[in-house]
């Protein structure tokens, strides 16, 4: 009897330990947490999803190849899930994990989904530390209002000199370790080291750090974006440790910003512009797409957008985005692009969209696109974006209350 009692107590103790852990976590935890006795509390859970589906017509170039037939395009559709919780000393800890569908040339084949976010983040009032897969720190200084983020990407985005060009998302996302300071949640200084995705196989190891940089950014008061003349601006420098016979270290300088031409809640007109300068490479010709990312170039992009916002709710939007790119020391390699984009809001987060984009490339550059000097694509489709928060108990850091009054992390 005594023996039974002892064993019973022991069993009870074990069972108690079992049942204090969530069943799913207990069964499926891939790795034990550092302190397994305490797995944490229920965090704030956030889900963000975007579906973009369009019918395309034209000669889009995907994965470096021309596709002439009309197609159905669902690229850039994404799902992001995140968790966040308040930490002991007013910090906020969070994680994000998200995937998006790359272009049609990759989806359904070797790369059906691209992990664009997989990070853990620590935020305090005046500092943030993020590690993992996230936005390439050099790539989001200015976001342009094209339908998809890879539209006109060679003009609007710093290019990954380690990419082979098969997945355009490689220019937008990277493995990142960044430390960001801020003053009044208005001025941000970001210092980071990155591993730009090396699909070309240039680096010696698959995840070694190959990009280092610093960026400064200004954001206007939250909520005042439609009425501030200067909404945002920034400047950044990136050094990429590429080691090739003709490219021994690359420098990227970027600068840009967003201003309102018509400050208005109803009829807002804004203008954004960006200049990217890539220098340090002595490439004088192109052998492949990767060379077009490494070579020294200057890319400028600008966009004018009109947003009709009656009764405080978006009605429709029209934008014209253009870009021009020229290479230093390489003739017949210039290119330009234009995109006219329209969106009609049908409901919260649900839009009818249409876009016509055209690009022209000079002969030496076009040779890397199967000789295609011009690319014209018309698209019409639907976009649905939603964002949901469960178990809410943390607000964003950059709020009117936190910027105008004392900072409180809740």
């Amino acid at each position, binding site marked *: 009897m005594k023996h039974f009692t002892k064993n019973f107590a022991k069993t009870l103790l074990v069972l108690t330990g079992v049942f204090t852990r969530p069943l799913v976590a207990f069964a499926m935890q891939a790795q034990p947490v550092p302190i397994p006795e305490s797995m944490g509390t229920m965090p704030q859970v956030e889900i963000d999803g975007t579906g973009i589906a369009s019918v395309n017509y034209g000669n889009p170039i995907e994965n470096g190849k021309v596709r002439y037939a009309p197609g159905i395009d669902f690229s850039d559709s994404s799902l992001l899930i995140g968790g966040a919780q308040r930490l002991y000393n007013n910090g906020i800890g969070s994680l994000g994990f998200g995937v998006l569908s790359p272009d049609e040339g990759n989806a359904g084949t070797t790369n059906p989904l691209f992990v664009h976010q997989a990070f853990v983040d620590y935020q305090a009032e005046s500092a943030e530390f993020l590690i993992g897969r996230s936005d390439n720190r050099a790539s989001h200084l200015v976001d342009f209002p094209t339908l998809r983020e890879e539209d006109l990407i060679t003009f609007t985005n710093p290019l990954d000199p380690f990419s082979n060009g098969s997945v355009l998302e490689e220019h937008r996302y990277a493995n990142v370790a960044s430390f960001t300071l801020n003053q009044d949640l208005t001025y941000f200084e970001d210092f980071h080291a990155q591993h730009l995705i090396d699909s070309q196989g240039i680096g010696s190891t698959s995840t070694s750090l190959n990009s280092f940089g610093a960026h400064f950014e200004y954001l206007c008061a939250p909520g005042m974006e439609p*009425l501030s003349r200067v909404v945002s601006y920034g400047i950044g420098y990136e050094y990429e440790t590429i080691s090739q016979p003709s490219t021994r270290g690359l420098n990227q300088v970027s600068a840009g910003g967003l201003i309102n031409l018509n400050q*208005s809640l*109803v009829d807002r007109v804004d203008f954004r512009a960006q200049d990217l300068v890539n220098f340090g490479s002595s490439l004088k010709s192109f052998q492949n797409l990767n060379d077009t990312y490494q070579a020294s170039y200057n890319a400028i992009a600008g966009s004018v957008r009109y947003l009709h916002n009656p009764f*405080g709710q978006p009605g429709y939007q029209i934008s014209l985005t253009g870009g021009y790119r020229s290479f230093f020391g390489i003739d017949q390699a210039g290119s330009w692009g234009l995109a006219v984009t329209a969106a009609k809001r049908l409901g*919260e987060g649900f839009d009818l969209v249409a876009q016509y984009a055209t690009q022209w490339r000079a002969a030496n550059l076009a040779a890397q696109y199967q000789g295609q000097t011009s690319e014209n694509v018309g698209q019409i489709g639907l976009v649905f974006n939603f964002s949901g928060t469960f178990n809410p108990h943390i*607000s964003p850091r950059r709020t009117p209350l936190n910027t*105008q*009054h004392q900072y*409180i992390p*809740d």
Partner: protein
Amino acid sequence: MADNEKRDKDESHLSRRGFMSLAGTSGAAIGASMLLSRSPTALAAEPRATTFDPGTTTPDYPPRQLPKPGEKIHEFDIDLAISVHEIVPGVEMHAFTYNGTYPGPEFRVPEGDWVQVNFTNRTSELHTIHWHGVQVPCEMDGVPLGTQWPVGLGQTFKYLFRAQPAGTHFYHCHNMTTLHVQAGMFGAFIIEPKVDPVKKLFPYEREYTLLLSEVDTHLVQTQMNDMLKMMGQMTAMNQSAKLMKEMNGRMMGWFQDKNAFLNAVKSGYIPPYVSSRVGAAKPPSFNFFMINGKSFPMTDALSIRSGENIRVRLVGAGAMPHYMHLHGHDFWHVCQDGSPLANPVKMNTIPIFPGTTSDIIIQGTNPGMWHFHDHSDLSTTNNGQFPGGMMTMLMYEDADKYGVKVPNVIQVSS
């Protein structure tokens, strides 16, 4: 002068009625009071008259009168600002605070005196003050777009009215009420009677005002941010003729009348309550329950001595009913919504519904330390953790004399 004469006349009439009522039904109450505070001989001579009249709701003073030269006016300055309020250690929230406090300061004015409150709004949000239970002239009632324009950033609105009727009342913002009250815009308004019938029945020296409320801290933060964002834009609009012209009538959901509202809907305005704008309803999920803005164990205790009567004014300032229960004692419910009851009621748990006030008399009959808390037990938690919330203690200052050992300990959830 005529008014005063009328009032004196009414009071004498009321006294007789009160005496008859209490003599018949509230002997027990009077008896308890006697035992507690006076010798039987003294109590035998105690007048048992009261001065309340349940038979009329007519204001004693015509509300639309203005002050006459020489009449005393109690003037108060109330500034509204955004401050940080701590509910319990470790839990802070941004709040709308009258003169920097959550809840706002307690007003205490003699019955019939004039009151002028200079209310200055130092936030970009729109606000008013509604004098809940006070018989003010219509223009002073503090209902935005009803009796007045809401008070904007930097503006001062002067509320002027006569303090009537006597009793426990309160005040609160009447704009975006569900948000602004949770955010701290409420306070007690006590009108002291010329003759206090409660004090006559239950002699007391000390009294306490407990404002009961609750808050969904996350909702307050979220909605305050949304409102500040909109009001920042409104402020910019007010400074720009161009923006004013293009935004006129299209942002705040303000319409001249029902027809204007209907016309706006026909021309594309989508009201914010329809499912295509808001999705599913998101009612508040209250996580902190407070007495005077604090949750247990940071609530202030009620002090009492054996044989003493204390008066406790309970105010339902929030959106939920609360059922205040006192351990080890019965107490007398003596006033409701400011008015003395014809017959005080003996209870140990009293419901306090939103918008109501109840005055009780606690008699020092059982030395010790006793819980006084909402018996809707979900309200005795802090963020879901017991103990906490709407709870305080009745502390006997002379408990030691009766051999009661009061432990020097505070319990918080672990």
